[in-house]
């Protein structure tokens, strides 16, 4: 394959991934790695390097929009980033010491979860718990967010559990080169009882910082190859930008089903190839 053809195919695949990721709110990173590894036979270490960089691009690029909506909570984000960045470094170091088969299989399992979420989960109603527990109050994590034009107060609980889950989310991010937004949302929404909207936007805000922590490790190990990462980053950005423009008109339900089926197929391929030792 010539460099021009490779670059064009990767750009197109990444643009579709960024577009679908932005429309469904699931992020594009999760399909980049299997697309590169399965369709183009790219070594998984290059694939996770390129994917990680694209994750930073979409997270940082969307940050201003999320703040404007008034949902994200910078104190919660910053506190939990201590956990995600430490986890991310550990995960990135681990990526160099496990075989690519293991990475492929773990990746497949994460994809199964993403497919399930895309196919079956509706966005839960945000119900705010008003009172923080002792630690949440001492850390001043509670805040308010807009509901029907008014500001609804919310409290934060179970900080240690959330912190521990964030170590895991960071480690997965560093091991697989993904944003692991789903796990971040679970830590905040389920464990810490933070309203769903606040959890998703704060998670998006944290993803870039988490990814930057493993990027240093990836860079020094040579996982970030400019010839592969260039079309991935530009493609994902272009696709995500387009996604924000058509959001209002798109039939998101149908798209989620299409996305879910694609992700499930990729999951099976990754797991089968991982066990067969072909990745």
């Amino acid at each position: 394959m010539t460099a021009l053809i490779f670059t064009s195919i990767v750009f197109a695949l990444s643009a579709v991934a960024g577009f679908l990721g932005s429309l469904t709110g699931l992020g594009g990173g999760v399909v980049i790695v299997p697309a590169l590894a399965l369709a183009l036979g790219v070594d998984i270490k290059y694939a996770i390097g390129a994917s990680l960089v694209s994750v930073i691009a979409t997270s940082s690029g969307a940050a201003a929009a999320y703040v404007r909506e008034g949902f994200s909570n910078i104190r919660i984000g910053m506190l939990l980033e201590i956990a995600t960045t430490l986890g991310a470094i550990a995960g990135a170091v681990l990526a160099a010491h496990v075989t690519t088969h293991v990475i492929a299989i773990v990746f497949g399992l994460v994809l199964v979860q993403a497919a399930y979420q895309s196919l079956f989960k509706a966005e839960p109603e945000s119900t705010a718990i008003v009172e923080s527990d002792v630690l949440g109050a001492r850390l001043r994590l509670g805040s308010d967010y807009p509901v029907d034009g008014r500001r609804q107060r919310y409290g934060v609980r179970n900080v240690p559990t959330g912190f521990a889950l964030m170590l895991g989310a960071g480690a997965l991010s560093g091991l697989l080169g993904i944003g692991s937004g789903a796990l971040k949302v679970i830590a905040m929404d389920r464990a810490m009882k933070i309203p769903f909207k606040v959890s998703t936007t704060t998670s998006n805000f944290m993803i870039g910082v988490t990814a930057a922590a493993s990027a240093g490790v990836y860079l020094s190990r040579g996982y970030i190859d400019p010839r592969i990462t260039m079309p991935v980053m530009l493609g994902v950005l272009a696709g995500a930008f387009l996604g924000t423009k058509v959001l209002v008109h798109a039939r998101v339900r149908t798209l989620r089903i299409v996305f879910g089926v694609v992700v499930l197929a990729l999951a099976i391929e990754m797991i089968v190839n991982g066990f067969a030792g072909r990745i």
Partner: protein
Amino acid sequence: MDDRRLELIIGNLLRAGVLLAAAVVLFGGVLYLASHHADRVSYRHFSAGGDAIQSVGGVLQSAAHLDSEGLIQLGLLLLIATPVARVALAVVGFALEKDRLYAVVSLIVLLILAFSLWRAI
């Protein structure tokens, strides 16, 4: 200066950083394709690319020589720097708000990021 205003400023800076990084990557990418479009490529087997793309110093050096891969990598370094800048700005912002607890929390995150990027320097 309240949280929201601070965050909006940071958010806009981040977006500017991403756009700048994308422009540099695009420039490097055009140069790369102009001279290498007919190269046969295969990335089936991982092999580390060498100092020119693996260390900050090496990247700066090859970008300064207008090497296409060095330029792309410079753009990617700028992109990686945007969340780091965001945390650094949060340290300053919380300090200005006289919120000592979260100035320290942000500083810890910044130190972890510095530690991670340290080996690449």
